[in-house]
């Protein structure tokens, strides 16, 4: 009942007292008028001309006909307007000469629908209207401000390229083109939102990628019917299969080299303006577990890091849960010296072990979250507060036992070894679930919950690809799962993305 009621209320568009903008929206759907005057009035009305300060209307005479330039001067190269458009047009004597022939600009397109022209102007194009013509010429001269290419900050490597994506998709695409010099690298673009007209670029290798998967991705992008999708983080939530799942199913990476290597393996990469990152799909569990450095390092070193990461993964998941389980339910498992040491430190602690660990875990998460949000000038305070107050003072005040501080710190430290943000969250959250299971049911609880977790992992799919493949179910692949193989033995692209060309060497 409640659910149905909620669904109804959510679907109904609420009536609001404000004036509707449907009339304006209809205007934009219309075609251009032959009369320049009418077009000028229309655009001035749409752009709220005198109010809107950075929109420019430049009228001039082209031979004997009136002409009009419309552009937004904060996002266009104004020197192009002057040197490459106005100058040749005003100087030209020959009125019969085609516009395309007299203007030295790299890309010229023509549009007739008002809405399409508006989109192009918003992208930094310059629109030229000529009296008597029912179309507009659009010259490309975008000039969006943005950052330079900087070092990657969240996925750092020691041995490997340092550059990271930035907020300009053209730069990002250029960085990928730099890595894949192939004619089959396709950069497809599509507009995914109605009002803000956000572009998404779909990158793939046309002779490798699976067509069915590609059309699946295209379809999901088309299905988004919203006014705006600003960044990839928002897009990710719009296109993923299980929005409520604790595990991520799309890889979010800020490294162009990583994105490029996925494209080369037959994956699809999505890029957007305003997002210093890319989305890689489909993603398996292993894409979150791996880091690009694993392959840049030599075989033994790379696998050593993989081993450490696996250890860290299990430590984060189980260390505090195992401590609580063993101390509360399975004391006989602990060697006598350790058992007595734990009992001695717990002698004056007022809380049960489970509460003690939960408290410290929460405190650790708080330090972490606060440390992330704190303005950098007062950043060091967090370290002092965290280390001193929570570690030292809590122990001295007999609020927590020193062993718990060790256990929680070890678990917290290990969690940083899982580099991917989403997987990091997934692991940290499951840690709390495991901790609860351990405090209620001991090791039995941990084992049961872990088994359920594995069941769940096996059941998830990302764009049709099973989450744990190629480990289970098995596919032809280079077996790059927990450990990697020698580069010379990595013969195949991953079979689970069904590439058109499976062999890569």
């Amino acid at each position: 009942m409640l659910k149905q009621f909620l669904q109804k209320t959510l679907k109904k568009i609420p009536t609001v007292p404000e004036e509707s903008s449907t009339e304006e929206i209809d205007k934009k759907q219309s075609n251009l008028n032959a009369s320049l005057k009418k077009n000028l009035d229309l655009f001035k009305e749409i752009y709220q001309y005198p109010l809107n300060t950075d929109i420019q209307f430049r009228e001039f005479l082209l031979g004997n006909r009136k002409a009009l330039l419309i552009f937004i001067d904060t996002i266009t190269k104004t020197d192009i307007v002057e040197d490459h458009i106005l100058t040749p047009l005003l100087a030209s004597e020959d009125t019969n000469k085609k516009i395309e022939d007299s203007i030295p600009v790299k890309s010229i397109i023509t549009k007739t629908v008002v809405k399409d022209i508006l989109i192009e102007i918003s992208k930094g194009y310059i629109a030229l209207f000529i009296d008597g013509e029912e179309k507009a010429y659009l010259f490309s001269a975008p000039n969006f401000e943005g950052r330079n290419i900087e070092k990657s900050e969240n996925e750092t490597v020691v041995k490997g390229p340092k550059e990271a994506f930035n907020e300009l998709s053209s730069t990002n695409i250029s960085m990928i083109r730099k890595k894949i010099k192939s004619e089959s690298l396709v950069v497809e673009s599509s507009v995914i939102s109605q009002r803000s007209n956000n572009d998404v670029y779909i990158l793939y290798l046309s002779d490798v990628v699976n067509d069915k998967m590609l059309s699946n991705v295209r379809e999901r992008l088309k299905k988004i019917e919203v006014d705006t999708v600003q960044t990839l983080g928002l897009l990710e939530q719009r296109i993923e299969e299980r929005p409520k799942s604790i595990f991520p199913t799309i890889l979010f990476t800020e490294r162009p080299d990583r994105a490029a290597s996925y494209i080369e393996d037959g994956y699809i990469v999505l890029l957007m303006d305003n997002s210093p990152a890319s989305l890689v799909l489909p993603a398996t569990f292993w894409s979150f577990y791996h880091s690009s450095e694993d392959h840049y390092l030599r075989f033994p070193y790379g696998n050593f890091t993989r081993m450490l990461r696996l250890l860290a993964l299990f430590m984060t998941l189980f260390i505090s849960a195992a401590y609580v389980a063993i101390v509360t339910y399975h004391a006989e498992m602990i060697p006598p010296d350790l058992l007595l040491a734990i009992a001695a430190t717990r002698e004056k602690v007022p809380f049960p072990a489970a509460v003690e660990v939960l408290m410290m875990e929460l405190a650790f998460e708080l330090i972490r979250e606060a440390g992330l949000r704190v303005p950098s000038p007062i950043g060091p305070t967090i370290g002092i507060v965290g280390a001193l107050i929570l570690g030292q003072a809590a122990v001295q005040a007999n609020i927590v036992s020193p062993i718990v501080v060790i256990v929680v710190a070890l678990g917290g430290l290990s969690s940083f070894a899982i580099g991917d943000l989403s997987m990091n969250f997934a692991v940290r959250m499951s840690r709390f679930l495991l901790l609860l299971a351990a405090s209620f049911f001991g090791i039995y609880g941990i084992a049961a919950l872990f088994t359920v977790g594995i069941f769940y992992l096996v059941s998830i799919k990302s764009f049709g690809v099973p989450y744990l493949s190629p480990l289970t179910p098995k596919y032809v692949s280079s077996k790059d799962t927990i450990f990697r193989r020698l580069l010379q033995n990595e013969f195949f692209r991953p079979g689970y993305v069904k590439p058109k060309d499976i062999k890569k060497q």
Partner: protein
Amino acid sequence: MMTTITKSISLFAMLVFLSGCWDQVELEGRAYVVGLGMDKIDDETNQIRITFLISNPEFGSLAEGGGGDEPPQEIISFVANDMESAKDVANMVVAKQVTYDLLRVLFISEEFAKDPEFIRWMYDLTKSKEIRRDIRLVVSKEKASTFIQNINPLLESRPHEYFEKIFERLNATGIAPTSDLLKFFRITESDADLFLSIYGTSLQKNNSGSVQNPLNITAGEFQYEGMTSPIQFAGAAVFKEGKMIGTITTRETRLAYLLNPTLPIKDILTAYPDPFSEDHKLAIRVEKQGKVKTKMDLKKEVPSIDVSLPLAVEVLSNHSMVDYPKEAEKREQLKKHLDDEITKVFEDFIKKTQEEYGTEPFGWSLEARKHFRTLPEFEKFDWMKTYPNMDINVDISIRFSNFGRQGEVPKLEELRD
């Protein structure tokens, strides 16, 4: 209308509250019994005297707010019906829930071990979930309660640590046997071999007149002075069919170690008479080289066992100043001498087991089982009955490994010239 999710969540919540883990006790809420003593009271009552040696976790802890001046242990001794109910009875005095999770040693008085009823109490130990099968069995000469009260090691002051360390050394040197609960049950139930238990006492026998060979004594006979614990462990208590029947000395315990294929031992430091000088003794290190080979012929009228024991011998003292490395003849003489001596010791001990105990502590019955097709056949053979009449030969092959770090010795005559 409930959805599947709400249903399963409420089911899970119920599971949490109904699961019955509410009897769990936090670590610091328990009193850890490290040593458990069992004494006989008298023949009339069906009760025993239980002694708990409870370890104090806070002793020696450097952690914040540690125990301060608290003693390392707490001892309580009382009459109880059995070991399980004793845990609750003890709570009249002990403040925490008594647990056997850390139980490491079981002390039994010799008097109780010799009682025919003893075995019934031992099987109580198999009932408790907390008692592990690897706890050690120690037979004390005096009452177990007296023995436990005298345990007061000066250096390894935490009791579990003391037991762990001393039993490790006792086993490594072969002075006392490895005697764990599992072995006790296994040997008793197989009804063929002798079980050897650690033998200890806190009472030093006062026989200052005669000087004992310290390598051939039982607990209480080791004479020492100084400031240390009054506890000593030496030799073994012999159990036959779950009942103690006697004790053997340290030397005999070591012999049992050497002959028993199931007992691990690295090396033994011992002393034998010097063949070249009657006044002196030769310190040697004996090492078992590879496995003991037992060849059995059990189908004969008089069954026979041939044991071959390869030994590596290192000579560590040489008071007669013989230059063994250079004199092959003397070496041969020494080898023959040691061979005779050791064989004689073995033969004496085997004879003792045959005549006095009626069966052996060497674990040979395990080996013997392989010679029978079925278990009933072996049972019909009746190891305990046939063993005393068996023809047993011990064949020792000695190999000298070296003669100490420096093999050469100067000639005494030349030195004193």
